[in-house]
């Protein structure tokens, strides 16, 4: 297993998103995966695959397995998406399965809704997180509500893939984390993988789901590699996973901050603190069981995310875990999150993003 090192995350003034995507797009895993569209192909091989490559493989396999799956959006065709997640799909499956749409996010979501009403399973892309905002009405007023509105008669199996969060030196509007908007909206399922195996497995599961899924892709982790065998199936996407066991404190993380949490746990160990790390994977629904069990064991918890703290997803985590585990808690649940300011410019993001050091400093504020 290879782990992408810090430098691959892109320094603040480093390459722009698509640039980094370019450098990472031709990864062998992706290419290998492309060569094996049929899951039951002989001799499954252990390959090295990035998150971007795993997502590409999942799309390829879903397109191959189910003729009702279609992929469209801005630049997802011949270009393969600005992060190359849809690389080579257009060439393989043709214009009627994978195509470039006009440039309008509300239009993309709105037409995906219509297609889903007709039995297709659209997997669409919002090019960057903040560019999902023009589609906000279609997502909240229709995608999220159609099933309930029609008493379950109309399912909308639409997956909206959204590259999100910072850490790649993106200019304004290219680093937002909007999970709190989506998770507050009943009717949506919101998930985010933190590693290649989950990326593959969860995207397949999202596409197979009859519920609309907001699939958040941590863009700073697109090029983080792992070795695995395709097709891989990890735990059901609704379940959180304990990535590291510990006794003293539970770190709750998701998407890009899972790496931060693991780093913090490793550093804390040097200081003699035993840290459990939970990767939420699913933000809505929230896995009360797994998180609850961990917090009951450790008695202390902190949640880490990039979005602004105020009204962020961490508030829900803190509130509900406190509600349910109050008498197990020895200290208030901490939130290590973005500051309550707009996401900063590339050269300033290092000061904004939660780091392992900041997590440790937060743990130090507790009276132990």
């Amino acid at each position, binding site marked *: 297993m290879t782990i992408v090192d810090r430098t691959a995350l892109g320094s603040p003034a480093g390459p722009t998103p698509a640039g980094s995507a370019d450098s990472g797009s031709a990864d062998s895993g992706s290419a290998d995966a492309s060569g094996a569209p049929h899951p039951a192909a002989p001799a499954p091989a252990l390959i090295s695959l990035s998150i971007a490559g795993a997502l590409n493989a999942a799309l390829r396999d879903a397109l191959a397995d189910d003729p009702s799956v*279609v992929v469209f959006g801005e630049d997802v065709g011949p270009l393969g998406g600005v992060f190359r997640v849809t690389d080579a799909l257009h060439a393989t499956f043709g214009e*009627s399965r994978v195509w470039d*749409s*006009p440039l*309008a996010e*509300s*239009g993309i*979501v*709105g*037409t*995906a*809704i*219509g*297609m*889903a*009403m*007709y*039995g*297709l399973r659209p997997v669409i892309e919002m090019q960057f997180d903040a560019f999902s905002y*023009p589609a906000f*009405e*279609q997502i909240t*007023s*229709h995608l999220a*509500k*159609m*099933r*309930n*509105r*029609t*008493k*379950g*008669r*109309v*399912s909308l199996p639409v997956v909206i893939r959204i590259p999100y969060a910072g850490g790649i030196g993106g200019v304004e509007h290219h680093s937002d984390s909007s999970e709190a908007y989506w998770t507050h909206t*009943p*009717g949506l*399922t919101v998930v985010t993988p933190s590693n290649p195996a989950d990326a593959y497995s969860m995207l397949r599961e999202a596409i197979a*789901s*009859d*519920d609309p899924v907001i699939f958040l892709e941590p863009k700073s982790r697109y090029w983080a590699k792992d070795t695995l065998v395709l097709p891989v199936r990890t735990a059901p996407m*609704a379940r959180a996973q304990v990535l590291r066991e510990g006794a003293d404190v539970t770190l709750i993380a998701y998407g890009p901050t899972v790496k931060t949490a693991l780093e913090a746990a490793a550093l804390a160990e040097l200081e003699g603190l035993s840290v459990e790390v939970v990767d939420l994977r699913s933000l809505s*629904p*929230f896995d*009360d*069981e797994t998180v609850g069990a961990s917090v009951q064991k450790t008695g202390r918890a902190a949640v880490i995310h990039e979005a602004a703290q105020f009204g962020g997803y961490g508030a829900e985590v803190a509130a509900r875990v406190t509600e349910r585990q109050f008498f197990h808690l020895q200290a208030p649940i901490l939130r290590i999150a973005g500051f309550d300011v707009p996401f900063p410019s590339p050269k300033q993001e290092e000061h904004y993003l939660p780091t392992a050091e900041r997590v440790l400093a937060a743990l130090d504020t507790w009276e132990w």
Partner: protein
Amino acid sequence: MNDVVAARAEPVRPTLKPIRLIDEKGAPVKGAERAGFTLPSPEVLLGLYRRMVMARRFDVQVTALTRQGRLATYPSALGQEGCEIGAVSSLGENDWLFPTYRDSVALLTRGVPPVQILSSFRGEWHMGFDPYEHRISPQATPLATQALHAVGLATGAKLKGDEVVALTLLGDGATSEGDAHEAFNFASVWQAPVVFVVQNNGYAISVPFSKQSHARTLADHAIGYGMPGYFVDGNDVAAMYAVTSAAVQNARAGGGPTLIEGLTYRIESHTNSDDPTRYRSPHEVAQWRQRDPIARLETYLRASGALSDALFDEIAAAAEQLAAATRDAMNTEPVLDPLELFDHVYATERPALREQREYLARELAAAEPAPADVSSTESISTASGSIA
């Protein structure tokens, strides 16, 4: 590039005067105003007449029931029957309709039972019919949003090789929304089998067309999308039917989308709770009452001998029957299950939602006669005590 652009032929250009086949006096129109369209057969016209009469009676009945407080709200289409019925009658059985809150009579025409149409306006549930049974999407409230669904569904059908056309109804106000533009554009780029019917009834609630658009006609928008556009007299059901049918056929044949503007008028208030005296004159309304789409066709049909007194009476009786059935339906209070609030939110079960469902179930089970209303005057006094 240059060549790509120049190679595109100019599509049909909307006329400056609305297309008309029967004039306001009920006489058949000759010449240019017809824009090449021909009058439908007497059978078709009689069918349209019957549907309009039914629609009108239904609409009047529901408005009356709403005034009696039997419905939470009802947006009437009185006066727009030519537009509504002409457009929706052009659809085949496998085609889809994407209506708005205003278009209940279009649903009626397509066979949705009154009680199912009115379920949402009674406040029972957000919609009352099965979209797949009738090939009609829920009546959209967020303006222009459904136009994109129509484009998506039509494109989905095209991808699957099915000969399905989607028709969507939009108001003049709705065309100002970004979604209308995106729908027009996606449809024309994808050459989706969609027909956009804009019912320009002169107002978006209180806002007159002159504050909504600076266009000569909304059909002119079609030019900017390279699609055919037609400006039609929406109170001439014959013209609406002829033009829409041609557009549906063209779409079905792979010719892509069409934009049709029907010029009409909303005789009733926006909804029962609107006060139109604030923004339009009785004179204007009276003028438009003169242009009634039903009276116009009736005159024509009687003059042409297609509508006998007997048939007139038969249709009127059928309409009365519909009204009576609608009244009856509104007399029955449906039994609602509060716990259903939780049952259709997700296809995939959620433990936390089950917990909430159980909470409400317990609350309902424990429910006794409501406790006395404790008016908390004192505490609000405290609030105002802090007022400077």
